[in-house]
């Protein structure tokens, strides 16, 4: 076997890396050893991982090296957000409440990737319980953006995004409830994919807002997202909400001839700075150049999406997080009295961080007697209207094209004392989440912003079930824009 130089694995996507492992051109053990060493060395810089288990990963690499069956992700190192269960690994949701909690089983999405040969090297940092847009609400310190370490990588899948952008792994899992994979993808120069709600099993995903939560991958190529989706999608007896509908088969598109893309003017108007607007217009021009017909349309409820989303998500979160009481698992705090109620209150008060408490109080209030009709039920009715707006859009176009975020990556600390200004980061991702639609986040050109070059992103949104169409369109757009080979400066950082 000819062994390539140690660091050549860094720049490969998961598809190519697996191919080289399967053919014997590259050693799985060498790749995993190099990947673990790099992740350990760079952990102090980006704080991407909450738990790295190199011993476990290397043991698995040795098994895979000599395996007779070689899957589609043979020997590919992956990172998994710490709200997904990986048996034996600490999955703390970045909360003091679950410090030291090691999952006794593996999430279906992770198990399916492992069955194709993926090697989990660790669980990644995140906003506590997936509640955040910057990665700063982790109980274990913020994640840093590998493009600019003074900036946030986005959230809540902050560590997964940093791990892929920092070339620690080619593929990572996150979760996207209101934009938690698409937004970090935009801020870290990555490809990200939010599937149709119910497309990928959520068994083993710690629930935040069940009617919105999706397991979602991050990568450096659209074909890797497609591969990951193909592997993870499909019914699961352990998740009754998981769709039995098969993914639509489709070869990659050469161009966008015959397709109509709708550009909502409210999404376009949300872009806050000139360079971001120029980057998005370049994407629209790329669509046109690839043969798509562009139509302008309107989604007026976009302006209410953040409010609607946060009311519904916090109500669901208040209910879902009721299970964390320090009785059967997690941390049990000393109480001022020996009663059960005091123990539960003390554990929750000491275990949860500020943003989690804020959302629990908000959600409990919005669902409480005397207030539920005005807040929760009203928001659920507005959600119906949001869905109808998208339904009408599908009468005019095959897919929607819009920016992913209103602005590029913010500085760490810039908005951490102002929850509302952080929620505003989700202005363009939450409408899609409310409607349960699939969306592929693609890379648009870098922009000059506050003295540096930063990534930007766009999202291709398609009707329910048309997950693959979104990925195919996004792939053509990245090729047309030349952003498919975008590499963060971190790729050159030697560990």
């Amino acid at each position, binding site marked *: 076997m000819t062994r390539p130089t140690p660091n050549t694995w860094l720049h490969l996507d998961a598809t190519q890396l697996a191919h080289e492992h399967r053919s014997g051109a590259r050693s799985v053990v060498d790749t995993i050893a190099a990947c673990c060493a790099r992740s350990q060395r760079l952990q102090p810089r980006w704080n991407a991982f909450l738990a790295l288990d190199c011993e476990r990963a290397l043991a698995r690499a040795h098994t895979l090296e000599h395996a007779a069956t070689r899957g589609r992700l043979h020997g590919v190192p992956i990172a998994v957000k710490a709200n997904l269960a990986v048996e034996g690994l600490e999955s703390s949701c970045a909360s003091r409440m679950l410090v030291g909690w090691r999952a006794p089983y593996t999430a279906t999405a992770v198990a399916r990737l492992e069955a194709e040969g993926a090697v989990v090297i660790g669980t990644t940092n995140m906003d506590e319980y997936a509640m955040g847009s910057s990665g700063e609400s982790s109980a274990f310190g913020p994640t840093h953006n590998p493009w600019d370490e003074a900036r946030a990588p986005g959230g809540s899948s902050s560590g997964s995004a940093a791990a892929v952008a920092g070339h620690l792994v080619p593929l990572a899992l996150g979760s996207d409830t209101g934009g938690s994979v698409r937004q970090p993808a935009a801020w870290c120069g990555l490809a990200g994919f939010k599937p149709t709600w119910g497309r990928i099993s959520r068994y083993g995903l710690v629930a935040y807002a069940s009617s919105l939560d999706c397991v979602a991958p991050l990568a450096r190529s659209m074909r890797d997202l497609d591969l990951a989706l193909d592997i993870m999608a499909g019914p699961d007896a352990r998740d009754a909400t998981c769709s039995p509908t098969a993914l639509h088969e489709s070869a990659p598109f050469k161009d966008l001839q015959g397709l109509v893309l709708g550009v909502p003017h409210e999404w376009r108007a949300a872009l806050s700075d000139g360079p971001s607007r120029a980057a998005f217009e370049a994407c629209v021009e790329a669509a046109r150049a690839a043969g798509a017909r562009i139509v302008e349309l309107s989604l007026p409820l976009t302006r209410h999406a953040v409010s609607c989303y946060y009311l519904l998500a916090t109500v669901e979160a208040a209910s879902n997080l009721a299970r964390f009481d320090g009785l059967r698992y997690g941390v049990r705090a000393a109480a001022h009295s020996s*009663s059960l109620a005091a123990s539960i209150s003390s554990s929750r008060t000491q275990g949860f961080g500020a943003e989690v408490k804020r959302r629990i109080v908000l959600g409990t209030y919005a669902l409480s007697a005397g207030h539920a009709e005005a807040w929760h039920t009203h928001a659920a009715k507005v959600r119906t209207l949001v869905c109808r707006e998208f339904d009408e859009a599908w009468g005019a176009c095959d897919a929607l094209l819009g920016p992913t975020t209103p602005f590029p990556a913010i500085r760490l600390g810039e908005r951490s004392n102002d929850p509302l200004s952080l929620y505003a980061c989700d202005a363009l991702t939450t409408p899609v989440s409310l409607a349960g639609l699939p969306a592929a986040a693609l890379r648009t050109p870098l922009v000059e912003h506050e003295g540096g070059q930063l990534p930007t992103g766009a999202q291709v949104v398609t009707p329910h079930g048309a997950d693959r169409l979104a990925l195919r369109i996004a792939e053509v757009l990245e090729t047309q824009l030349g952003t498919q080979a975008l590499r963060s400066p971190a790729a050159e950082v030697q560990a």
Partner: protein
Amino acid sequence: MTDSHSVRIPDLRNAAHLARLDLAEEEAVVLCGEVARILEHFAALQAVPVAGVEPCYTAVGTRGLPPAPDLREDEAQASLPRAALLGLAPQTQADDEFYIVPKAIGVAP
């Protein structure tokens, strides 16, 4: 926003109590103040007319409640090992047969 929708700090403190959060006075003032400001901002949503509109609790499928899932055959299946689950507990009985929880009966709430 009408008066009936106005956000009162005591109601937020009660919500914190209902959610079993035992906030210290200073934390309660800060947190409830922040939540009140957030809700006041969200109140613009009330201006969206929704008369005759059904609420949506899941966006995929029926838009109402999720459809009843196809149930599997009622057959015994293996569950997670008891020892693995008990091993995650903050406190168990010495022989790891039971969870130990604080006294719930005969104690003032």
